[in-house]
């Protein structure tokens, strides 16, 4: 599968680390670097190796990690704007090629009720009408987070764009483009997802929901979509045997029971009680 990943377009020089965090980075990085030089040897080199980038981040206010994650913690926002503010939150862009015609891939996605079949963090999506939908996402500790979304852009067999509608928890916007791949290779599906959790305890729950490894999540979601459309059934190895599981904890499948089922009592008795020279009548 071809994946391409384009992080938020930021000029390499932009500051993406919050002020307090910069000061902390500066202090810790400096201490580690100084300690590393003083200590010498391997341990010292290790300290220096870890400390130096932190120091740099403190001085410049730029984090390579945050840039990779598409995070920008320098911008503070507490307003519930209708779309994800520029340069804030998580933005992931992924592309894959699915060996099915554009019309089929488009139709599958356009029915938002199908989204939870491949987006693992969704429990269900209900269509309210042609444009609006209600989303229920899984959160840690059996909780759910819910919001409404509306389709803001739609061209049949080309693009679907949506965003959250008046949610106090999360600003989410997404778009998916469909393009016929050359040489009959199916459909190129390009997904852009943006999430910006808002403030408060619920907001941080949402951040945990989307923020752990958003790229990997979208990657795996797209892979499941591809498998559903190409094979009908995403492959799994969950529940297969290994030496890590105890056989007594698992029921014996019927194919084994059929084979190892104890013989009927009469038959057992017959085999025991008749001499070999005098076989029982059922032979």
């Amino acid at each position, binding site marked *: 599968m071809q994946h391409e990943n384009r992080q938020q377009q930021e000029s390499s020089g932009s500051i993406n680390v919050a002020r307090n965090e910069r000061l902390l980075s500066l202090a810790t990085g400096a201490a580690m670097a100084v300690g590393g030089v003083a200590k010498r040897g391997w341990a010292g080199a290790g300290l220096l190796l870890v400390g130096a980038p932190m120091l740099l981040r403190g001085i410049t206010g730029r984090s390579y990690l945050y840039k990779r994650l598409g995070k920008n913690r320098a911008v503070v926002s507490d307003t519930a704007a209708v779309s994800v503010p520029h340069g804030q939150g998580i933005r992931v862009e992924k592309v894959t090629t699915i060996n099915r015609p554009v019309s089929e891939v488009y139709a599958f996605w356009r029915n938002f009720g199908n989204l939870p079949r491949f987006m693992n963090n969704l429990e269900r999506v209900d269509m309210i009408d042609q444009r609006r939908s209600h989303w229920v996402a899984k959160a840690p500790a059996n909780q759910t987070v819910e919001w409404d979304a509306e389709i803001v852009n739609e061209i049949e067999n080309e693009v679907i764009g949506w965003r959250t509608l008046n949610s106090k928890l999360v600003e989410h916007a997404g778009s998916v483009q469909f393009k016929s791949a050359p040489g009959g*290779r199916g459909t190129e599906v390009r997904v852009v997802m943006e999430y910006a959790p808002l403030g408060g305890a619920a907001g941080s729950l949402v951040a945990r929901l989307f923020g752990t490894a958003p790229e990997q999540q979208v990657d795996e979601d797209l892979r499941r979509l591809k498998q559903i459309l190409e*094979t009908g*059934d995403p492959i799994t190895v969950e529940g297969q*045997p*290994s030496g890590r*599981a105890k056989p007594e904890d698992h029921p*014996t499948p019927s194919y084994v029971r059929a084979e190892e089922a104890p013989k009927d009592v009469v038959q057992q008795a017959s085999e025991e009680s008749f001499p070999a020279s005098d076989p029982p009548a059922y032979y």
Partner: protein
Amino acid sequence: MKAVCWHGTGDVRVERVPDPTILNDGDVILQVTSTAICGSDLHLYNGYIPTMQAGDILGHEFMGIVVEKGPGVRNLEIGDRVAIPFNIACGSCYFCEHELWSLCDNSNPNAGMAEAMYGQSSSGFFGYSHLFGGFAGGQAEYVRVPFADVGALKIPPELRDDQVLFLTDIFPTGYMAAENAEIRPGDVVAVWGCGPVGQFTIRSAFMLGAERVIAIDRVPERLRMAEDGGAEAVNYEHEDDLIQTLKDMTGGRGPDACIDAVGLEAHAGGLPGLYDRVKQATRMETGRPHATRQAIQACRKGGVVSIPGVFGGFVDKFPLGIAFSKGLKLKMGQTHVHRYLRPLLERVQRGDIDPSFVITHRLKLEDAPKAYKIFRDKKDNCIKVVLSP
């Protein structure tokens, strides 16, 4: 059920584990009748393949009887006797449609892990680490087979397990290696490594029209088996300069095609051998490509180097300049077993070849720990082990 479980370098154990169940609609469960230990299982045994977990069930060469099938299975019935390719393929992605079965897009549940390592993921393989899907293998009494309609080859009752078991891997692997060598009538083909894959490569090279095959190894019984297959044996340990020897044997031209059936654990003497061992031990390179280097050095101008031997990471001192200046063609990769199942079954039925020639040991599944050891150490003249559950 009983199964052969990996527990670490040089440590395999036969353990009682849960029985497999249907997990995807296209699955079948096989009762395994025969299974073999592959040379590539030794890479796991020797700890060269990352992402193994203690308790993983090994084995990717197996055949058996269908005892259960998922609701999506169309072509198979309970009681069918089948052989299963070592690679798992969905049959509906771009790669499967183009007969590139070992590159299937949809059969590796851990494709993300493989993409992080290799950029793109190959297909899933049975019993071959979590990087390649984490599928439980077939060195067991029962095994779950996904996409069974796509992979399973029904076996006619008149053929013995011994004659068809190797259609699952080593026979197609040797055959594809020879096919990749683009052999033309009159060609001289040199094969590095006379293990089971090398043996099938030698015989396949003759089937595809090679005039002569030169077999290179250092284990006497393996060289003898190569000679039985019609090859000229060269024990590299008795040669001061193997490249020169090969030149001398081919009128100064070099072999038209060179096949490396050794892979990432090649043995070499002297300084080059020490260099690779140290670098591999310190993980500064993951393969010891000694045979590949020699194949490139020995090959005639404009010839083909075909690599069925397994590699998994980075190698060093790769003589790309030699390959470039001689205009060589390099072909490699995991075998697209599905492509060869039926044509090679026909060859077995016609009597072109009886693949059981390669078997030196038949043991019970319980004896797997001993079998791995003698196979790795090349003890007791061991070339190929078949286990019966």
